């Protein structure tokens, strides 16, 4: 059986595959099929761990902070290879590998995965799509953050368009995640919206990305300001994801399941 003890082996193997894919994609000017194959191999190894671990704990691994980081790394790598296959941005695999590795290291040092049980509040058909779609959005918005930082030092205007594509996909997924959560909240708590700290930060993050998209429409040439907006938006996303737990009075949150 695949348990948490095996995570380090699967993650190191995945990182090596992603690392080779990153180097190959960066050094070749044309789309590298070998790089794509290596990236997909890394994703498959990582997916094998997630499936095996899912079977081992007998519930979807989506409950704790460590488990959401597991999915974030997975979807970030998947988003990276998808973007590379679609648009052939040469450095996207390097960026996504870097960020995925960071979150894998955090998970190795601080797993936060202990419980096998799922409380009644989480026994819902909304549980898996709500969390998974959020993780997909975090992955795309994380990739857009990397592009924004890169764009600050590289004046290539095509990078801004690439960033817009990523933000559009990420914001779409974020919208789905947020409103799935809202429909779930109506079933579980009787209200669509409860102004819980996690919900409020999610709303602020979502509004920030909408403001970014509007800003790009109104001021298409204000690239630097747009990228700064995007970096701040990602900070909001990080607070929404786990930073909110470190702010005062997090015990009031209805979203604490640890």
């Amino acid at each position: 059986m695949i348990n948490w003890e095996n995570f380090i082996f699967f993650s190191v193997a995945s990182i090596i595959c992603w690392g080779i894919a990153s180097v190959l994609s960066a050094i070749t000017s044309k789309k590298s099929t070998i790089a794509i194959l290596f990236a997909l191999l890394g994703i498959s190894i990582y997916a094998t761990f997630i499936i095996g671990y899912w079977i081992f704990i007998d519930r979807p691994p989506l409950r704790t902070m460590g488990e959401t980081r597991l999915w974030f790394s997975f979807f970030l790598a998947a988003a990276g290879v998808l973007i590379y296959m679609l648009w052939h941005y040469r450095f996207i695999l390097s960026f996504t590998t870097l960020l995925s590795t960071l979150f894998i290291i955090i998970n190795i040092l601080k797993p936060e995965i202990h419980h096998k049980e799922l409380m009644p509040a989480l026994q819902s058909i909304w549980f898996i799509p709500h969390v998974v779609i959020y993780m997909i959005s975090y992955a795309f918005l994380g990739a857009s953050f990397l592009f924004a930082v890169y764009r600050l030092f590289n004046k290539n205007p095509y990078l801004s368009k690439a960033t817009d594509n990523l933000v559009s996909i990420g914001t779409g997924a974020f919208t789905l995640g947020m409103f799935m959560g809202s429909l779930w909240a109506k079933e579980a708590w009787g209200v669509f919206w409860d102004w819980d700290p996690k919900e409020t930060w999610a709303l602020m993050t979502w509004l920030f990305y909408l403001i970014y998209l509007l800003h790009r429409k109104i001021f298409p040439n204000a690239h630097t300001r747009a990228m700064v907006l995007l970096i701040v938006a990602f900070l909001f996303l990080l607070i929404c994801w786990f930073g909110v737990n470190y702010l005062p009075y997090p015990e009031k949150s209805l979203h604490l399941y640890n």
Partner: protein
Amino acid sequence: MVTSQFFAFPVNVIFLFSLLFILFIVKNIPLLHPIWEKISSSKWLFYALSLFLGTIFMIQMMRTFCPDSFSSQNIFFKIGLSRFVSSPFLAVIATCLLFTLMAHHAKQWTLKFSWKQLQLRLFELGAILIIISLFWGAADQHQYTIIINKETASDIAYTDTQHPVRLPFSIQLNQIHVTKYESGNAKQVEAKFHITQNDKIYQTQCHVNAPAHFHDYDLYLQSYDTKNGEKNHYCVLMLVKDPWKKTTTTGIIFMMIAALMMMIPVKSNVTKEGGVPHD
């Protein structure tokens, strides 16, 4: 959210139609056309969204770092700077956003139809419905709690301020069923009960994440006696009457369709050679 009874139906609906009427006047009187051009522009929507975000951020910061501002005697609490529910301040800002959003949306219908336009229209229409129902429809929402037991039927529920309210039906508990993990922790809790109205008996049940429905009411299992589990004789139900539920759900569905459309990239930035030039 506006929960004051003064703004309950029909005041909230009259108010919303007044907003629409003002928009209609501004749009159709030539003298006011420059104002219409401004309020229906993307720039004004950008400002309204930023103002809304700034307001939520400020209130959240107050709630996080100034716990004293929760006191009902506190000036920030009174004017709604430290709360989201029944905050006059947030209601005004949300109404500004609603007004700008409606103007921007009305303008979209005069533009040429396209895939991107359809997405935007659905997104904005969904947002308008959600803001209307969540902010202005909240005054029509009623929420009560009721303790039901196996011995007698109960028809007295309580508001969040502990005011008793007589329900048009009575509820009596039949059984509490608890499914447990090997560790003894609850996996799922289900309450079976019957509702009596006009001498007719309706058998129903609810569990966590699956409320029961009776006429205009949704009934949620709020708590039960965890020490006695299935042997306990009572449980607490939450009753919610939300006439705007369908409006909110429609708005959410519109926004989710628009979000799915957003995730399909329309244009690729790939050059003939592939990828970002000179990256």
